[in-house]
């Protein structure tokens, strides 16, 4: 196959990877702090998209100018999703902080189911068209035809988010508290960190990224439905694990690897087996690096 095709697949993979990354970041952050696989994360992504859609519909009918709609609707969606994430945590996960792993998992699954059906019943089961919220801008000629502006926006956003999060974790006080909490929660409490606050912030930030992902991706794909959270969530989870769950650069790396693997599998082998390929790569990597690409192996104290 020619290089043009190869390059196209590369950018496809990059797009997919960025999309997964936006979600995987949230997964990984939450997991890093409280060791919970937040199945409801995908639903936050979905709710973010829905609220953006609803608000943009309202604003359009009220006749606001287009850029204002974009900004306002997104803002409202982001704020709301963070609120949802915060509430879900306080409601379902906080009481389960000391419960066995599997129970928390089931609780998360229950939450995911609840949120899906909540949106289904309150809104609709139909697929809804999502307005094109991403601004178009010209692409440098060399890449035009291979990449679209929507894709570029997604890459850039993901990179920016990743940088911001890494800076946050490394250099701010909140970041330090997060690291401390993730290392040893009891000790963190003992040195005066308000663990509840830290966890709430983690969820807020995680949900924020999820909603951001929801808005961007839905603009890219053009449609939403109450079920999209589930599918996206699983993929993002795989990506996060692949990269080493708990590590932020890992989440991005894992997502990119996953995205590329799927893209090339679909492009050269068969579109049907792209998921199979993705999982096989996952298994392979985990065989050689059981904690994921950039994951820190869990040290077991005897």
């Amino acid at each position, binding site marked *: 196959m020619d290089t043009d095709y190869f390059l196209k697949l590369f950018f496809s993979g990059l797009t997919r990877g960025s999309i997964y990354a936006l979600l995987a970041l949230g997964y990984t952050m939450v997991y890093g702090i409280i060791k919970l696989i937040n199945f409801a994360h995908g639903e936050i992504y979905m709710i973010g998209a829905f609220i953006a859609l609803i608000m943009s519909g309202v604003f359009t009918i009220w006749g606001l100018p287009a850029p204002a709609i974009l900004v306002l609707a997104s803002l409202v969606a982001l704020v709301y999703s963070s609120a949802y994430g915060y509430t879900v945590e306080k409601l379902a996960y906080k009481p389960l902080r000391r419960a066995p792993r599997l129970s928390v998992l089931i609780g998360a699954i229950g939450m995911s189911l609840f949120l899906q059906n909540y949106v289904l019943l309150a809104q609709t089961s*139909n697929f809804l*068209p999502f307005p094109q919220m991403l601004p178009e801008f010209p692409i440098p000629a060399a890449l035009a035809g291979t990449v679209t502006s929507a894709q570029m926006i997604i890459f850039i956003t993901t990179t920016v988010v990743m940088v911001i999060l890494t800076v946050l974790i490394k250099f701010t006080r909140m970041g330090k508290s997060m690291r401390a909490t993730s290392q040893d929660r009891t000790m963190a409490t003992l040195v005066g960190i308000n663990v509840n606050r830290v966890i709430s912030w983690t969820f807020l930030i995680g949900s924020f990224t999820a909603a951001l992902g929801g808005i961007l991706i839905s603009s890219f*794909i053009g*449609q939403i*439905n109450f079920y*999209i959270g589930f599918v996206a969530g699983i993929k993002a989870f795989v990506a996060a694990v692949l990269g080493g769950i708990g590590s932020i650069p890992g989440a991005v790396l894992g997502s990119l690897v996953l995205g590329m693997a799927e893209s090339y599998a679909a492009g050269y082998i068969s*579109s049907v087996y792209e998921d199979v390929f993705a999982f096989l790569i996952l298994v392979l990597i985990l065989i050689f690096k059981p904690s994921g690409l950039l994951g820190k192996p869990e040290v077991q104290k005897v």
Partner: protein
Amino acid sequence: MRNKIVVVFLAFALVASLVGASGQSESGPIKIGVAGAHSGDLASYGLPTANAAQLVAEKVNAEGGILGRQIQLVVEDDQCDPGIATNIAAKMVGEKVVAVIGHICSGATRSALSIYTGENIVAISPSATTPELTQSGEFPLFFRTIAPDDAQGQIQAKFVVETLGVKRVAILHDNGDYGQGLAEFAQAAIEAGYPDVKVVLMEGVTVGAVDYSAIVNRVGSSGAEVVIFGGYHPEASKLVGQMRTQGINIPFISGDGIKDESFIDVAGKASEGVYATGPMDTTGNPIAEEARKAHLAKYGEEPGPFFMNGYTAALAIVNAIEAAGSTDTDAIVKALRSKYVETPMGSIRFDDAGDAIGVGFAIYQVQNGVYVEL
């Protein structure tokens, strides 16, 4: 462990005692089952039919019911899962329904039919399109208000080769029982009927994937001149959207899964020029208009996919029971096959296999945001 056997017993007893068996007297309400996916990812295909049945039942009941008896709907959700569908079927049998409107998905319908046929219950589906349901002869009590997939595949193949005049065809599908079936029929029709036309790509896409650019790239590099797609409107709209964004402007044709307003809504500009085979147009039909208004009034939104088919099925059953003069299955079957009924899809009756006569397929194209019959 032994102590807990108690709890098991109590649980068993408690749960089983929540049972309600129901019978039906000869003068009580006429029970009609409505089965389909009302939750889960295929809910958007099952709920409109449930709504349709509801509207028909209300309308008929307001006018005095059938044979002087009120219609009572038994609405059940099978989530398009064949396993659950058999449970539902058994329940319908237990509830002594006269007929079942459903199921929605071909797989679920098939597994439910194995029970309905044995128990002598008529089933009429608005959307199960697998040909063997009527063509295999295994299900003499099954009817449907939609044409089977092989007919669609045939029409698509003919259109693509004879009207569009292409020589290289790419066929995509969504790996589902409906979509893949349709795609395979189209492929078979092309290969059998037009040996000098080549199918350059036959691929399945993953439903729910975030990005289809990989497969779209393949379509581009395969040199295809047209894309035939078997599947539903969400995937179709994503595919067309990405095709157009990538600058691949070849014609796109699909089946009744996308021949619906929702496809145009969701695909937006990209839907312009897309072809679809679908049941004959209902917009001129007064009954269809009335049904649509009723749906809008009651549910506050436009009806979704297969609504008209569901409405037709409901009317057909009601009419058949009325015409038969009783709830006897044989009489109903005879009535379905011999009497014409006015429906949103025109004046129809059913043939010996169970397919609806007068419900054929036509080709449509999206022009200026509306489906126009060609």
